[in-house]
């Protein structure tokens, strides 16, 4: 049975918005949360983007690492009485350090991890780790019970997959056989560096050392060793996060735009999600050029345009501008009609994909301005929740 955005938000504590870069995920996530609030929910939109504009639009001073509620009066002015809407941005670096603090056995381990040169780069660069932290925070927020629904804005698609796979990868690192080889003898010896040097007789390490140099392996071993202490914690969290994402609490909504290649990327992403066990429940086509009436109808009869000039002059246009006005109107409208046609053609495969999988499809028109205020956000909300019949 095909869900609706309203039902999805009602039935899931987490709704995750995925899609490639530049399709407007942050704004769509906010509009979904706004719609949930209008239906009486305490809703939170959690973004990974600084989204200053979104904060401004919501009347918030800025987005920080804690939920910021939109003022009651602001929501009241939009007709929202029972629900609430909050927004926050993830401080990925901070959260990752927090994880280390949480899982480290003692202050010495913690400080050694923070000082390890590999960690210093890992916490920034480990693909998906920042997003993993995102799930940590989501988990914490779900557990707190403060919100009925959390709408999660994700990083662009390639990295969205990193994000979904990050827990496995983290655990995979500390669990890997090579890590055990590298770490355990050293661990039993207590003196890491010395033991590793002696292990230089093993071909695998000889190979790595010949290329990487000795210091790197030592740092890596230390990192793995220290991280292993944390791995129980990470493993438990990873299982939990996987359950949270793929165990039915989370609904995935796929966003795509009509730009070249965006629909193909979206379908590839949805297929990948499917493999991971996450069903895409809805598709949002954003920034479409839509027309309330078929535009191509009149375009075949070109003399219709020659009648437009005199009509405009009859309405008060300076006669010398007659031809320029008709020509400009024609160019704009034919251009727009071409966009409408092209957007429909390009997004069709995704619409068919959604229909085959019983996912809902919503079309959001391209807006003349970027979203700067809640009124504009309400426009998007209504395109999502009260779609025009197509």
């Amino acid at each position, binding site marked *: 049975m095909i869900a609706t955005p309203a039902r999805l938000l009602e039935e899931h504590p987490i709704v995750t918005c995925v899609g*490639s*870069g*530049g*399709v407007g995920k942050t704004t769509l996530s906010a509009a979904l949360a706004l719609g949930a609030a209008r239906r009486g929910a305490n809703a939170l939109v959690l973004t990974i983007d600084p989204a200053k*504009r979104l904060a401004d639009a919501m009347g918030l001073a800025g987005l920080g690492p804690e939920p910021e509620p939109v003022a009651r009066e602001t929501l009241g002015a939009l007709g929202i009485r029972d629900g609430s809407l909050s927004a926050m941005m993830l401080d990925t670096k901070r959260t990752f350090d927090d994880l280390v603090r949480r899982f480290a056995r003692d202050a010495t381990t913690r400080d050694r991890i923070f000082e390890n*040169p*590999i960690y210093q*780069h890992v916490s920034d*660069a480990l693909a998906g780790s920042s997003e993993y932290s995102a799930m940590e925070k989501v988990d914490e927020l779900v557990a707190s019970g403060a919100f009925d629904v959390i709408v999660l804005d994700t990083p*662009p698609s*390639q990295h969205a997959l990193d994000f979904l796979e990050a827990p496995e990868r983290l655990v*995979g*690192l500390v*669990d*890997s*056989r*090579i*890590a055990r*080889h590298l770490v355990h003898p050293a661990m039993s010896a207590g003196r890491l560096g010395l033991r590793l040097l002696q292990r230089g007789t093993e071909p*695998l390490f000889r*190979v790595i*050392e*010949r*290329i990487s*140099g*000795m*210091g*790197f392996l030592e*740092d890596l071993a230390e990192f793995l060793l220290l991280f292993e202490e944390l791995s129980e914690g990470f493993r438990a969290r990873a299982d939990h996060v996987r359950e949270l994402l793929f165990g039915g609490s989370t609904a995935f909504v796929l966003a795509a*735009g009509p730009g*070249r290649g965006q629909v193909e990327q979206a379908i*590839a992403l949805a297929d990948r999600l499917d493999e991971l066990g996450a069903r895409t429940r809805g598709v949002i086509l954003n920034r479409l050029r839509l*027309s*309330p*009436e078929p535009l191509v*109808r*009149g375009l075949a*009869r070109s003399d*219709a*345009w020659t*009648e437009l000039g005199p*009509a*405009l002059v009859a*309405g008060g*246009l300076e006669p010398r*501008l007659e031809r320029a*006005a008709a020509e*400009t*109107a024609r*160019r*704009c*409208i034919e*251009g*727009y009609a*071409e*966009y409408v046609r*092209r957007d429909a053609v390009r997004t069709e495969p995704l619409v068919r994909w959604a229909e085959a999988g019983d996912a809902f499809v919503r079309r959001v028109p391209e807006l*003349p*301005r*970027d979203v700067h205020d809640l009124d504009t956000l309400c426009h998007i909300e209504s395109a999502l929740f009260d779609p025009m019949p197509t």
Partner: protein
Amino acid sequence: MAQPLPSPAQLEPLLGRRLIVVTGKGGTGKTTVSAALALGAAARGLRVCLVETGRDEEIPRLFGEAEPPVGHAGRQLRCGPTVMKMEPYAALAEYLRLQLRIPGLVTRLLDQPGFHALLDAAPGWRELITLGKVWHLLQPPPSSDEHIDLLIVDAPATGHGLTFLDVPSVVVSAVRTGPLQRHAGWVEEMVKDPERTLLLPVTLPEELPVRETLELLARARDDVGIAIDRIVINATEPEPVPSELLDLPERLAALPSSPDGLPSPATLAHCVRHRLERAALHRDAINELRKGTDLPFVLLPNLDVDGGGRGVLEKLASTLLESGEPLP
């Protein structure tokens, strides 16, 4: 104090470099720009190699030569450029073979399941090996007919695109000794050499891409030290309405009816207004970018509606390379 900004025509020719890294937010068309640049350079007689770093091969399709896939080995396309799809695992195997010269050992290493787990979790090695391969491709080859004049990298989207370029210096600082440190140093030197290497940011005349471009400029300067000498603004459109007719939407909306066969006055007005508002948005975004940087802009027309293909790429190439691109 305000000096006239250099126009693109007064710039160092793009084609004087050995390496151009094309970067930008997802959806800005950086792959199209990379392809156009490669096509234009090849048409001017350069031996061009274009490197894809994304998950899938896109560029051969843009040239209408998608089959067979180019793969990591690369293939010279009929239209001129050689295109290769960077496969980090393949590049790593090549690197290890060069370093170790014991093929059996490399195979054994790569077959270790633990080694894969370690690699999957290890940050930065894909980026490093990708740049390492790029460096290697630019070294003098054993025979002169394999020489590459210009290598163009279609880099990962920004955000991640810059992480891509900082990796060598990160490795140089994280790894204390040994060949890896030395090799990362060579790659870092290549990235930072303004004579050889240029970062070409591609953006759109829209708020978010512009903001991201300004962040990119700051990070490229402060964190990476890679040269940037111009910004490509893609998909720009000419002013849709002459200045005397800015009230055209209102005039159309006020018509009692449309001539037979045309959409309603409200729809006519909507379409013209839409174009006007988009144009204003684009203008604002370009002004915003102008406030944040003195670099010259290269404006590319929006040719998206033309349906793509070689013709579009050739038009873009001529704008990218127009005036001041001497034949080599």
